[in-house]
């Protein structure tokens, strides 16, 4: 069989553990932004100011949402770096491909 060596797997697993923690706490942080944004939207915002900067509540909500979208992408990016550091260039390239596809998608959506 062709398995990665035990050492490699252990290192990958430890990195994975750290990345999983990043995702969990990141999700909590994003949830926090969402809660603040919602609460502020109900009780904090002043009257709508036509044509000026977006309300604080909207900015909080946007931060939370963007953070949520960014987290899994960040995970893939970090994995790409880990693979590169482990000199596993194939998988670094594969991770890079995933990131590129995602980026292309975002760009296409903005068109």
């Amino acid at each position: 069989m062709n398995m990665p060596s035990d050492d490699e797997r252990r290192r990958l697993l430890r990195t994975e553990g750290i990345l999983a923690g990043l995702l969990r706490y990141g999700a909590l942080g994003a949830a926090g932004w969402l809660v603040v944004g919602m609460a502020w939207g109900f009780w904090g915002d002043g009257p709508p100011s036509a044509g000026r900067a977006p309300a604080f509540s909207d900015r909080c909500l946007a931060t939370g949402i963007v953070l949520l979208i960014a987290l899994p992408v960040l995970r893939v990016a970090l994995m790409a770096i880990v693979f590169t550091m482990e000199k596993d260039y194939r998988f670094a390239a594969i991770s890079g491909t995933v990131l590129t596809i995602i980026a292309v998608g975002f760009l296409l959506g903005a068109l």
Partner: protein
Amino acid sequence: MNFDGFTFSMLVGMASLAAGVLGGILGMASGIFIVPALTLVFGVPIRYAVGASLISVIACSCGSAASAMENRLTNVRLAILLEVGTTLGALTGVLLSGVISSSVLYLLFSAILLVSAQQMFKKRWEGDRGGGREIPPDRWADVLRLDSSYPDPRLGREIAYRVTRVRLGLVLMYFAGAASSLLGIGSGVLKVPAMDSALRLPIKVSSATSNFMIGVTGAASAGIYYVRGDVLPQIAAPVALGSLCGAYLGTKILMRTSNERVRGLFIVVLLALAGKMFLTAIQGGG
């Protein structure tokens, strides 16, 4: 319906909580319950419903990111490779969602609900055909060193497995990714059987690897929806928060209920939703 109101947010939040609990008990992302709830009950246009649901899929996926135990079950290398397929599919799905009519989306959704009900029925979660199956060598698996092993706590040792038919897996992941971005679901219901039957992975590995991938596919799709303006914060926020809490509660409840009754209940719910979505499709979409 006023999407900005406090009442709306609270109601949506509670509905998402319920959906999250269902999803948490089932071990799947709650998107499959959220989109029907948003569209059928709250009258949200399906594109905004999908956008909001995708955000909650990411939230739940990140929130339940693998524990140390699961880390050994997830085949990370395989997951990243398959993500090439899912993200390409997600891209296609989002591009298509602009041209596909709502009616077709509702039809697709009801089909997925039927498939989910069928999966529950066949008790996929318990069966493990990994043991005696013929596993032909696969060039990609060899070159990329995808074969791996996982610890079995009952037997107290590592069980090695091989991966096969990687290219077929990629194609299936492509469709799973497209379904995910079109319908706002996690697509675990498509990914796990694909990995189980096409790639011949042990079922526990399939589930763990699928969970790993769901967040990335969700992010790829959600990002595009967001950039297009199809994610309305006033809907997405309560949905994400509600389903996060619900998923957390769901996993707690899971410990206490009997599997058979839970499964039966869900088959009924899924079938009911499938029927309702189908009717909506026929009546001309939302």
